[in-house]
């Protein structure tokens, strides 16, 4: 099993619904977030291109954060989801420094927090909160090893990219372009 997510930049409108849905789903304190929206723009008026995308932890297959964690709090769960066991985390921040995507933040309660792909929902057969809420239905989630999963199907059909592939972390968050 290999969980992955694809975000369709052609449909994302950058509304940040994924951000607030994650916050309310996961009790992320106000002022912090596990996912966020990025806008990039190319060109000069009037020849312009804007890309909008919802970003989060890339749940890398070769995760520097898991490797560098001194306590084993950062670990792989089922399907390659990278999780942090809060009560094992000492908040040293090594993982934050190691992450090329800046996906982790220090929770005010002293541990490091990040996207879990809504592991608690996925276990119950539900989609992550961001995927379930998105009004543009621009996010696809599922098991890459299942050829019929939403994410496998869309990645076969569409051209995609990952962010900072040169970091060699084997990210599992894909962007449809």
């Amino acid at each position: 099993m290999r969980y992955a997510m694809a975000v369709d930049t052609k449909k994302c409108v950058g509304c940040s619904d994924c951000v607030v849905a994650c916050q309310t789903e996961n009790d992320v304190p106000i002022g912090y977030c596990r996912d966020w929206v990025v806008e990039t723009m190319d060109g000069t008026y009037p020849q312009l291109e804007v890309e909008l995308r919802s970003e989060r932890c890339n749940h890398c297959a070769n995760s520097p954060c898991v490797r560098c964690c001194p306590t084993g709090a950062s670990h792989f769960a089922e399907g390659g989801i990278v999780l942090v066991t809060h009560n094992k985390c000492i908040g040293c921040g090594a993982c934050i420094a190691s992450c090329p995507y800046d996906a982790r933040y220090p929770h005010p309660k002293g541990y490091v927090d990040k996207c879990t792909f809504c592991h608690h929902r996925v276990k119950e057969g539900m989609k992550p909160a961001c995927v379930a809420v998105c009004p543009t239905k621009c996010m696809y989630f599922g098991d890459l090893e299942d050829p019929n999963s939403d994410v496998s199907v869309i990645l076969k059909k569409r051209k995609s990219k990952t962010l900072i592939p040169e970091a060699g972390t084997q990210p599992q968050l894909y962007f449809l372009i």
Partner: protein
Amino acid sequence: MATRRQFIRISAMGAGAVMAGAAGFRLLGSEFTDGQKATAAVLATRTPTYCEVCFWKCAGWVWKDDEGNIKKITGNKEDQHSNGRFCPRGTGGPGMYYDEDRLKVPLIRVEERGKQVFREASWEEALDHIAGKMKEIIEKNGPESLALLNHGSGGKYFTDLMKSLGSENYAQPSFAQCRGPRDVGFSATFGENPGSPENTDIRDTRCLVLIGSHIGENMHNGQVQEMSDAIDKGATIITVDPRFSTAAGKSKYWLPIKPATDIALLLAWIHEIIYNDYYDKKYVEKYCYGFDELKEHVRNFTPEWAYGITTINPVVIRETAREMADASPAVIVHPGRHVTWYGDDTQRTRAVAILNALLGSWGRRGGFYRQEGKTVPSYPHPEYPKPQKSWREWYPGKYNLADLGVANVIIDASIPAPEKDAMIKGWLVSGTNLPLTVPNTAHTIEAMQNLDLLVVVDTMPMEITGWADVVLPECTYLERYDSLRDSPHRKPALALRVPAVEPKYDSKPAYWIARELAQRLGKGEYFHFEKPEELLDWQLKQMGSSLDEMQKAGVKTWDREVDDLYFGEGEDIAFWTNTGKIELYSTALENEGFSPLPVYTPHPEPPEGFYRLIYGRAPMHTFSRTSNNPNLFDLMDENTLWVNPRVAREWGLTAGQYIHLKNQDGIETDFPIKVRITERIRWDSVYMVHGFGHADKKLTRTYGRGANDTKLITSVMMDPVMGGTGMRGNFVTFITDLERKEVTS
């Protein structure tokens, strides 16, 4: 480390550890060794609601933990407005409930109006006080001198109160400050307007034309969802906007039009479609009235003619006309929603309607579908007293085509004129923050200063509450029942709102407030039921359902009575116009003395050193009402001023710099706004998101953040047809020396 997170994000740049009441973080037990136990698995109860954060009214579920705290709100899958997906504002709805700045107890003003000095009062005292004043006004000037200005669900009950007293002075700024011209323009053409949600069949369209309508930034949920479906299906999107909007970024064509020239472009498109025989001949012949007059009217409006006015390349005008024709009838020239721009807005939306008629899209798949709704029965009550006069008499003979109240006329009628006393003496304001909604704030303040009574009902302290004689704290939509949502859609449906929690503080639902006032004014018989749920149950039983059934389902959808979502092949249709046809040539406008066919008129242009002020929406906020919501403030905490790099160079502006703005009448912003230098805006215009720059200190989060566009809108271009306030004819210049400005209020 935090720097990159902060640098790249356009959202969730919250102010670090600002904690709000909403957090309520529960300690995680050691049994959750993943450390990832979150709300979904522990949430015990859900109650149905429909959202009140905007007017789309999506139906959903409010989820509570086992201690009864509201944790999250999600969409109801059976709901046609949301299809189970809430937008960011709806998802952030808990912030409306948890906002610690909420109005908490009734307040009675103790010093002069606007000084914001109040004392706390009991409901008993506040309501007695209001009823006493209302009685005085009624005795002296008649019930017709009372008016209601409202927005949202609570307004219904106060409208009933006005009707029971014998006043028809009720208006929502959502008409004359927003979609009114479109409703009137479409009614004049098709005999009906697009409604809310609009009857746009975007999911099946092959070509979507957006004229200043920024779907995706205006988060009209169903439309955003369907636009995404249309993108998936390869539909062509054509966006006409002086700004490269989010929608423009999804478009095959972006037409960066010179502001205020849209009618010229529309006329050129009509010309192209008629003179190239692109129009739907069978449809036009069977259903339309006045084609020959229209054809003659647009004879000279060629793309080359329009080029000189709009700056849009004639080749692009031709190509886009062809794209529309190729998709016809599965094409939508979108009616828009906020369309009060230049005072000729009814005529512009008429041109939009005419274009749709020529393309045969009204009543066709991928164009505009026919809506069907449920009619909710009213509980029998004595007939309403007939008002002797209304706001319509303030300007005799004017705005006859306005089919709803015109808020700005009610405001005008509250100020004594040289030859006559003010008609309106008392206002009830519910759920609308007039100083940040209606242009020309000074005029609104003058009206308020002339009133004998100003009562404001709201959930939050707002600029308007500062002017009130009595402030009544309403509970949020999460704490009350409201009337059934019966908006027509593809299928008739009802949605129910029930309280998820008890009202916080000493706040009360609108139904209770209206009923208490009615009883004090001897009109109790119009509010038969003590509790709104009793009325809901009675109504639902009349329609073959029950409160019990609806509480479990939240939404009930019926099949259409007949299968007529689209016009049948060759179907005979009587349109609700004077001629019974789709009026390309409007007899209704002609009868009122207006041009029966749309005409392009040049509008004022920015003077040297000034830029046209364009404003719009952000997907995470609704007008000025959500900017203090802790969840939504976290997503966007101020507006920015979009400035073209050329203009920035000329003025020496740098990205992120804070500046003040001054308009053509010398009106300046209260607070500075951050500059965003971007190629996404024309050099003759600047842009900001509406709803920021709050000057009420009681809004502790949003006070002083960003600029208030409404304050800068002092030049109003009136729509002579229906009284709409055109707001895009204002020009601003920059004040870069912040020292010169003292932050006031």
